[in-house]
């Protein structure tokens, strides 16, 4: 069997492991290990890779944002801050069907504006939002699906690590890419809110509705959330103002919410210990998936499956729009098995020159930017499409009582919204490009 065949066979093998309830990180790790073993004929290579890989993944500076923001989420809950936040949101939106879920999407978008990672956005926001959504009568699958989708806003709304890597690989201007990503990012948030309102109309029992609250009380609830807003402003302002890195922002947020929780009595030795063990549980789960994905992706890169797949599509000689569609579909498929960064690193060097050679009636720079934004979006859609989607797994694990199937069912509404958006952006490049003019 050639390396390429081994790489292709690893897809069904990985799916089988996952469907047999093997934890996601473990499944990817095992597929990567076995794949390298079969490819090389011995275990020397995967064993050698493991000398540093686990340490290097766990010590990744950009990822250290995850445990810090998770801890911040626990402190915010302990100090009554997330309840206050949702109370405020509910006062304004609770009388609408799906209002609180929309508030959660809005919060994800706000968080996405400061954070460059969709897994971190999804995990952090679900720590804060899942208990609240439950309190307001939202069913489990709908809540987890909402946060999994909302998490992708972490990458869609700039700043975004994926766009920085794309800019480097394709020699495009980072500032222009960030600017171009803005409108599609906002469209994503709006599209998700539309998905919420459709979902709650199709499934009326899935979300609670309250009586409207008088205006004066609505604003009074806003006053209660000032400490949260203060911390939030410090974090967002600091990151945007270039005073600190996102990871440093997470530390500021954790310390800030910790102090507030301590002052208003929510933080005691008992609850501090609980926060530590819950942070430990979620962080280890996420990092183990990250490790498994890194290992599996290293194997896939070596088999050259992503590279060969890309070259094959390129060789079909189709019309420009069909080539573009085929590329986007490939990203959706690869999105089941790979993380966003690995996908981009392996495929963009092959796809990019091809797309640039096609005529879409745009200037070269506009084609490059438009294609970058489209890739950014489909890569993120891959994270929430069933059956394999990193965000789905992570959020579902944070809500142990919710069956995976109900998350799958609900997330289809968000995937549909994503597809509509991609079609719109492909049909009307101006949506992406008009800010650059």
């Amino acid at each position, binding site marked *: 069997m050639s390396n390429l065949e081994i790489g292709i066979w690893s897809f069904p093998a990985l799916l089988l492991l996952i469907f047999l309830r093997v934890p996601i990180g473990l499944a990817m790790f095992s597929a990567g290990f076995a794949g390298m073993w079969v490819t090389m004929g011995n275990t020397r290579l995967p064993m050698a890779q493991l000398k*540093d890989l686990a340490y*290097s993944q766990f010590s990744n500076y950009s990822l250290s944002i995850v445990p810090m923001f998770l801890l911040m989420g626990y402190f915010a809950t302990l100090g009554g801050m997330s309840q206050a936040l949702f109370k405020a949101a509910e006062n304004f939106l609770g009388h609408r069907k799906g209002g609180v879920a929309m508030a959660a999407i809005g919060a994800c978008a706000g968080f996405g504006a400061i954070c460059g990672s969709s897994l971190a956005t999804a995990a952090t926001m679900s720590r804060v939002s899942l208990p609240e959504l439950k309190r307001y009568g939202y069913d489990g699958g709908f809540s987890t699906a909402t946060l999994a989708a909302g998490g992708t806003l972490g990458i869609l709304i700039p*700043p975004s690590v994926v766009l920085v890597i794309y800019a480097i690989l394709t020699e495009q201007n*980072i500032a222009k890419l960030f600017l171009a990503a803005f409108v599609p990012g906002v469209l994503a948030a709006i599209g998700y809110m539309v998905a919420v309102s459709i979902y709650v109309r199709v499934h009326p029992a899935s979300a609670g509705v309250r009586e409207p609250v008088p205006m004066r009380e609505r604003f009074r609830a806003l006053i209660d959330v000032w400490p949260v807003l203060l911390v939030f402003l410090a974090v967002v302002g600091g990151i945007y*103002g*270039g005073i600190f890195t996102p990871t440093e922002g997470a530390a500021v947020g954790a310390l800030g919410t910790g102090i507030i929780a301590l002052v208003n009595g929510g933080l005691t030795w008992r609850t501090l210990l609980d926060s530590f063990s819950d942070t430990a549980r979620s962080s280890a789960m996420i990092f183990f998936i990250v490790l498994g994905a890194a290992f599996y992706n*290293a194997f896939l*890169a070596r088999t050259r499956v992503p590279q060969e797949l890309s070259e094959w599509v390129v060789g079909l000689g189709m019309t420009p729009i069909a080539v573009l569609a085929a590329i986007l579909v490939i990203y959706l498929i690869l999105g089941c098995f790979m993380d966003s960064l690995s996908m981009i690193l392996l495929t963009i060097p092959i796809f990019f020159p091809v797309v640039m050679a096609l005529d879409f009636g745009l200037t070269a720079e506009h084609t490059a930017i438009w294609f970058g934004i489209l890739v950014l979006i489909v890569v993120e859609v891959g994270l929430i499409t069933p059956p394999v989607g990193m965000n789905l797994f992570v959020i579902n694990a944070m809500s142990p009582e919710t069956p995976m199937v109900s998350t799958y069912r609900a997330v289809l509404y968000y995937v549909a919204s994503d597809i509509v958006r991609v079609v719109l952006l492909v049909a009307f490049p101006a949506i992406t490009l008009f800010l650059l003019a």
Partner: protein
Amino acid sequence: AEVTLTLEHFLPPQANVPVQVLDVWADKVEADSGGRIEIERYPSMQLGGAPPELIDHVQDGIVDIGWTVVGYTPGRFPRTEVFELPFMVKDARAASYAYAKIFEEQMKDADFKDVKIVGTWVHGPGMFHTNKPVMQPGDLQGMKIRGGSRLVNDLLTRVGAEPIGMPVPAVSEALSKGVLDGTTIPWEVTPAVKVPELVRNHTEFEGPALYTLTFVLAMNKDRYESLPDDLKRVIDDNSGVPFSIFAGGTQADADGPARQVAVDLGNDIKTVSQADAEAQWMPVVQPIYESWIADMNAKGIDGQALIDEAKQLMSEYTPDMDTWGK
């Protein structure tokens, strides 16, 4: 092909070093072997891990060949640091020649005993790229500047900057988020990591370079030994002093076009004259020499002798030694 070798590095595929040095070398090896060797290239750390792990990847055979910055793994290859000392190197070809000579004599069976080294070279003059103009050491006070090696960070500390250590690929993200006020790198790699778009000020030094970093192109030892003798010879013929001079020279020559990118963007490029460098910068960074010699002595290496030899070798370099690929 009879033998497929993997080559890994940390830069994007279209950057200067991959295109003008690594691909040229790999293509020549493929051609010289009559197609019996094929070299698969994995840019941007596509096989996973971070740039500082490259040398371990080669040592363990995770990849067969790897290109890396020696300074990313401080403490492991101490002798190479002689070329990183401030105002030590004038010409990248001469320094790469000296580096390759000293490698043959002293480093082959010491620092680099665990790998087969194909080439050893330095980049063109290292310099500052910052969000504020820098002409004197005092201008750097409190600025967060990225340095790529132990000695560069020492230099940054002594001129009053706040050094932040990170590999090149992390620089653009950090500059775009305001985490850094600037970075030290040679011109050549600036377009690949978007530096001219992210900062507007560049400070060059007339005369000797503020600093240089050292590189190695390394091959897994067992993999090399496993090759048949004629293929070993293909590798050997494209290794050592001539290839190192080519690599260092080519990389330094790429500084010019890269500088033009910043010129075209209308950026502010300033030059510290040799007189100012000697009067204002040298006194501040001179103590690095003493502390480095002390460090080397502690490791049982005669630092002063190494400095003298490097200077001697650099002065004996002549352009007719630049023969590889010609």
